[in-house]
């Protein structure tokens, strides 16, 4: 089973809820995933279907709708979130009793983000909706002729959430008197309340980023937008065979995006042996931060093979080969086998450090096919040093949350003949409501997204020798 196309055991997936919230879950055999008010389901039931599938949770026996913890078998461990975090946007689970796992069935059309299911949409022609709610004085739930009891009955009849909402709309006395906006708001609220479906999506960099932003982890990813992330990949001319020098303060999001562009689909079963591409991450602290790679489908081995990390000090001021070698005395196989176990371990650690030091020297002397930087370090002091080993005619791309920072850098690069045509740019994706008859840009959107600087490394001519 290919985890880039199908729902697979052990995989991290994004689960989208009718509320348009989403959560990341690791799919462990035999566990139950609880979606709060939207129900609960067994991981085993969704394994093997295509990523992108929307499932509806249903309960065959009407009693199962009631709280009955015994229904969870002793083998089922209930998980509520793969990575529980203190997060105000998270579903408030406490408000709802823990649900037992229902059964799932695939539903054909999912209606995320377009906000309204087509069936209910059709009963809302523009002309039917009144102007400015003239006659509508808020009489609360009195206008709704369906009682909560009726609705519960419908639910027990296993009516789909969509069908229940359609029924509620037709039972709502004042519905056609509402303005388009109140209609939409009403339907959305109802939908979030009664629909029990969820969608399982591949956790691509865009989904991962959206999840982090929804969660409020904006600074963690330097406020980058998906569109900024994608244009960074194109401007950096990422290819499967490239060797890229990267500074990534987003916890690995950028490295993940580069890896997906380089290796997606080639990557997972350790069969990437013939791929030459390499990412060399230089980091400011003692240790790299690639936390977010844990959400990827790349194996630890694959990552180790294709992502090398070293500190800025090791990259910019590597020891000489002589120094490294002076600190290590190689033993012969025979000598090693004669060592005591404790000494042997120490020897291997020291051997590993030695090899790693040699590799770092190599990395610090390599030529690179691109420099990609998303760092809050002072760029005018950083970029000239890091770009020394970038090959001619290869791009340098810097991301920053703030334009002023890149402006300062661009002035520096503009005056330096090692860089061609530094360009400062911004890209912004503006999403629309896509309900036919009611097309318009979304009323609000996230403000951040960042800026990029792009230039080509070049090799100035020596004008003295012409």
């Amino acid at each position: 089973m290919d985890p880039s196309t199908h729902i697979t055991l052990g995989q991290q997936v994004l689960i989208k809820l009718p509320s348009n919230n989403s959560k990341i879950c690791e799919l462990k055999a035999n566990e139950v995933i609880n979606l709060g008010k939207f129900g609960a389901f067994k991981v085993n039931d969704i394994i093997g279907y295509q990523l992108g599938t929307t499932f509806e949770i249903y309960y065959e026996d009407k009693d199962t709708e009631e709280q009955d913890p015994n229904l969870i078998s002793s083998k089922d461990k209930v998980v509520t979130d793969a990575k529980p975090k203190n997060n105000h946007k998270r579903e408030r689970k406490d408000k709802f009793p823990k649900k037992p796992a229902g059964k799932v069935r695939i539903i054909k059309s999912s209606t995320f983000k377009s906000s309204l299911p087509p069936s209910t949409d059709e009963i809302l022609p523009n002309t039917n909706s009144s102007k400015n709610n003239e006659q509508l004085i808020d009489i609360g739930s009195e206008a709704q002729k369906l009682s909560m009891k009726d609705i519960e009955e419908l639910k027990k009849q296993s009516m789909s959430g969509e069908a229940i909402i359609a029924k509620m709309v037709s039972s709502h006395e004042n519905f056609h008197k509402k303005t388009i906006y109140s209609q939409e708001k009403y339907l959305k609220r109802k939908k979030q309340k009664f629909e029990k479906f969820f969608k399982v999506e591949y956790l691509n960099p865009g989904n991962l980023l959206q999840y982090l932003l929804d969660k409020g982890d904006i600074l963690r990813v330097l406020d980058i937008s998906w569109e900024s992330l994608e244009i960074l990949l194109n401007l950096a001319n990422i290819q499967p065979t490239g060797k890229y020098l990267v500074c990534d303060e987003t916890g690995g999001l950028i490295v993940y995006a580069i890896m997906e562009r380089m290796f997606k689909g080639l990557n997972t079963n350790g069969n990437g042996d013939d791929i030459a591409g390499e990412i060399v991450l230089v980091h400011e602290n003692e240790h790299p931060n690639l936390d977010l790679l844990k959400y990827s489908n790349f194996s630890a081995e694959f990552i180790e093979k294709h992502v090398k990390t070293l500190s800025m000090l090791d990259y910019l001021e590597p020891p000489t080969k002589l120094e490294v070698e002076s600190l290590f005395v190689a033993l012969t196989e025979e000598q090693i086998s004669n060592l005591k176990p404790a000494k042997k371990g120490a020897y291997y650690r020291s051997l590993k450090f030695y090899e790693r030091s040699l590799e770092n020297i190599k990395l610090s002397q390599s030529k690179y096919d691109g420099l990609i930087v998303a760092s809050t370090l002072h760029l005018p002091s950083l970029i000239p040093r890091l770009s020394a080993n970038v090959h001619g005619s290869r791009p340098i791309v810097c991301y920053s949350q703030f334009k002023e920072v890149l402006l300062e850098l661009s002035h520096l690069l503009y005056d330096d003949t090692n860089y061609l045509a530094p360009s400062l740019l911004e890209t912004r994706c503006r999403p629309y409501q896509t309900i036919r008859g009611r097309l318009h840009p979304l009323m609000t959107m996230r403000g951040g997204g960042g800026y990029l600087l792009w230039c080509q490394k070049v090799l100035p001519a020596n004008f003295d020798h012409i």
Partner: protein
Amino acid sequence: MNSPFTSYKDTIQAGDLVLIWISRDNIKPITITPNENFNTRYGIFPHNDIIGKPYGSQIATKTSNNKFGFIHILQPTPELWTLSLPHRTQIVYTFDASYILGRLDCGPTTRVLEAGTGSASLSHSFARSVGKLFTYEFHQVRYEQALQEFKEHGLIATNEKNVNNSTNSSRVVITHRDVCKNGFQINPLEDTTSLNEQSLPSLNLNADCVFLDLPAPWEAIHHLDAPGVLNNHEQVNICCFSPCIEQVDKTIEALEKYGWTDIEMVEIQGKQFESRRQMVRKLDDALERLRDLKRRKQEGAERRKRLNEKLASNGIATTSTSTSTKEIDVEKRPYTSKIEFNPFGKGFRIKEGDPNYQWKQVSKIESEIKSHTSYLTFAHKIFPEYNIRDEQLVTNLITEATN
């Protein structure tokens, strides 16, 4: 032949397709040919001086008036190629192209359908980043131009034998076709296409991505359901690219009708900024300049007054130009002939950034922005009839994981 768009080269060799960067608005593709010259109004650049140099080299030449002219030699990338295209053709710019690639989840194993090819700017992005691109163009002349270009760029192998092997050098297959009328299936025996796999009666395209840049994409969408066109065994992504909102509306209608879901429409707004400097002109300097002017004016008035008095007492008419007047004049000059206080270089042509003045770094949005390219409508499709799991396999995997 390796494509310069899908692999890196270090040294410029004869036969290479390179981009000559003359200026931001003037980037020329040429093939390096021994003994030829590249002529610009800044000077002549012999190809022989370029061969053997590393990519990215600046090449300089002395112009007739003993100044330097120079160019940079770059290896083509889809992004640089897009910049080099004449702006009169309809181009999918990098702002849109990169977002499309991201939203379509493109990677090295992706198989993409694109219609129409157009200026082939987006085709180059796809060709660089995906495993296989099937592109369709129904304008005869543009088809032939694009075919020729793909061949020159090493994206279509001229001696290809096995199109289904994604690791061979033919990244791109282009077909001359009105997809709205005739759909996407390719029959190499009958179609005008870059495929020279004559033995295949038809081809499984198995695309996972679709990009439609057509005046009426809604006429093409149902053709995607024909056998062998899309990869039925996984979620397929589509992007439709239309300038008018009414086209979006019809596109959404067709997508909904043919089972596409998660319909989302966006606009990409890209902006580019120029790095500039504005002179820092302090109020105190402005005031000092006004004081200076005032003082000079007063002094001038006083000088004239004294002069008049002197002349009057000497009995010389003020209109006289006799020597003595000049002498008196000269005597008085020290008061006013000193250089005006001019802290901001008023009246001079000051170069932006002139170190004699103080400057503030500012950014300026380009003077004409591309405020609209097209609306991008995205959707997904899963073929429910193929979304079936191998129960035995799943049971085995779960058992395996449990123990």
